[in-house]
């Protein structure tokens, strides 16, 4: 569920644009007003603001924001202002261009989005970059990762609830065989993980656990440093428990010294209107500390204010 708080009386897009424009004018920038407006509007409302701003002032709002803001705060606001599909397109393009085996973004987006959302991302990617997502992923990855990532971003999974339990058992068996033989990159492993429907896969993972004693991810931990195994485990978690997976991404982004702002920004902006509420609940259960508290501790300035405005919901 969304964590956004929307005011009872929403100003018109014109009023919002005037407030933003005023925030940009003169010396300095009124970041507080910017946060006030953008973090309390839905995606549709934000789109309306962008169009209206362009109509009134003849400039793309995002360009103005780019000029006025800096660093992590700027990155976060710009990402937030994009519509959800554009946002995913920007994120995957960024991930592909600087792809390395430890990349987490492609798996996260390819697997946690619905089949039609992923398809919309592929279409919008083509319009923006004049190439298909698949061809860019194929051109920037190699070896086992290419074998896994190309089908993963090209998948258009069936989304019905039907489950064939005989098939789940036999495919659990196939997975077990290849995992036992450490053939993690085997075609059958990739086929099953990248083509089957999510319902079918959950049944398969359950069958795996029942028939073979361990949850499948436990058997994929042979080498904790292996990026390919990590990718496989991520795929499985994104299918079975996407909110827990995303909680971990957030938690690790604020671990120890330093903060991975990119990861933190990514999850919060992409999930604020989707399931951030559930992720917060898991965070609290897991860490006995509210997510807001962790953000306060780990970030500062306008970036912190921006994140808190998105995360902090009405009920507090």
């Amino acid at each position, binding site marked *: 569920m969304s964590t956004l708080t929307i005011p009872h009386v929403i100003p018109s897009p014109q009023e919002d644009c005037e407030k933003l424009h005023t925030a940009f004018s003169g010396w300095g920038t009124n970041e507080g007003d910017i946060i006030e407006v953008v973090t309390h509007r839905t995606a549709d409302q934000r789109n309306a603001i962008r169009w209206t701003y362009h109509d009134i002032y003849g400039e793309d709002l995002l360009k103005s924001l780019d000029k006025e803001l800096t660093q992590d705060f700027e990155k976060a606001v710009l990402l937030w202002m994009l519509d959800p599909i554009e946002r995913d397109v920007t994120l995957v393009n960024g991930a592909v261009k600087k792809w390395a085996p430890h990349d987490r973004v492609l798996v996260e987006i390819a697997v946690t989005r619905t089949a039609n959302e992923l*398809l919309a991302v592929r279409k919008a990617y083509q319009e923006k970059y004049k190439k298909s997502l698949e061809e860019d992923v194929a051109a920037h990855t190699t070896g086992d990762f*290419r*074998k896994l990532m*190309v*089908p993963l971003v090209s*998948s*258009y999974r*069936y989304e019905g609830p039907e489950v064939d339990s005989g098939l789940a058992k036999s495919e659990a068996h196939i997975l077990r065989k290849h995992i036992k033989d450490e053939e993690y990159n085997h075609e059958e492993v990739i086929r099953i993980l990248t083509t089957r429907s999510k319902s079918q896969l959950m049944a398969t993972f359950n069958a795996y656990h029942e028939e073979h004693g361990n949850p499948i991810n436990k058997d994929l931990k042979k080498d904790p440093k292996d990026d390919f195994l990590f990718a496989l485990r991520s795929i499985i978690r994104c299918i079975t428990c996407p909110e827990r997976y995303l909680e971990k991404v957030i938690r690790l982004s604020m671990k120890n010294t330093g903060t991975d702002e990119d990861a933190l920004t990514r999850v919060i902006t992409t999930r604020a209107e989707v399931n951030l509420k559930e992720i917060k609940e898991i965070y609290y259960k897991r860490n006995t500390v509210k997510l807001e508290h962790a953000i306060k501790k780990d970030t500062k300035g306008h970036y912190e204010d921006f994140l808190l405005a998105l995360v902090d919901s009405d009920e507090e």
Partner: protein
Amino acid sequence: MADETLSLKKAFSGHGGFGVDETTMAAMVTKWRKQPDQKSRFRSDFSGFFTKIGSIEKCEDDYLLRLKTEFSRFKNIMVLWLMHPWERDARWMHHVMHKSYPFTVIVEIACTRTSEELLGAKRAYQALFNHSVEEDVAYHIKESYSKLLVGLVSSFRYEGPQVDNDMAKWEAKALGNVIKSAGSGKLIQNEEVIRILTTRSKRHLKATFKHYKELHGKPIEEDLGANLCLQETVKCIDKPAKYFSEAINIAFKEGADKPSKLSLTRVIISRADVDMEEIKETYHKQFGVKLEDMITKNTHGHYKDTLLTLIGK
């Protein structure tokens, strides 16, 4: 009388030609009304289709099956004509899973339809069969060309005008290198080959094939060996009219098998509103005979009339 018998035999074509001549059959019923001995003579004259068990006359089972097929050509083409193109493509692809159609039908559909048409077919497939076409192809087809097929069917190719010419040249070179070094059996599973053929836009691939020819002095098809899947993929992407013209030609060949003959209906129905004119020209150039003449000569009845109308005679 001999003439009548001949035309009735021809009407019940069962062999040689496609479809049945419903009009002639109905006319004969009228003509031979209340003349059982005419029919009796016809049966004994029509060897290969009627036989005897002792003194009991019977139809050959084989003939009955063939007759069933020929009678249903008209029914099938009418049903397909009315059907939504997405459902058509989904059902044809589904037939491949259950082995009644050759895998080349999947190459055909994945490579000759536009990205939106292929997407529509995939959605129809999911709605009809509760599985994605990708998972079914990956699961049911376990051949050397499976990876290529899954890649082809998963594609949602860019269709805009932009082509990176330098990249196309580079990939033409890369393909040349792979072809030289890989054994022809291994070519179909080569990652680079699959990547290029299943992810690049069609415009990009046409440019790549053009560069290949300039670089190596011959079209890439000649270097792909006996690899049917690769050959068909290249042909469908680069010269679809040629591909369809050849599929039609195979259907008309002497001794063509059932799936090959079914191509005639499939090609004409699916291309009637798309590139039929180009296919007709290509067919004429390649085989020295007009498509409408081939159809007129080799098909019968309402099936024939429908085909002729569809090709825009």
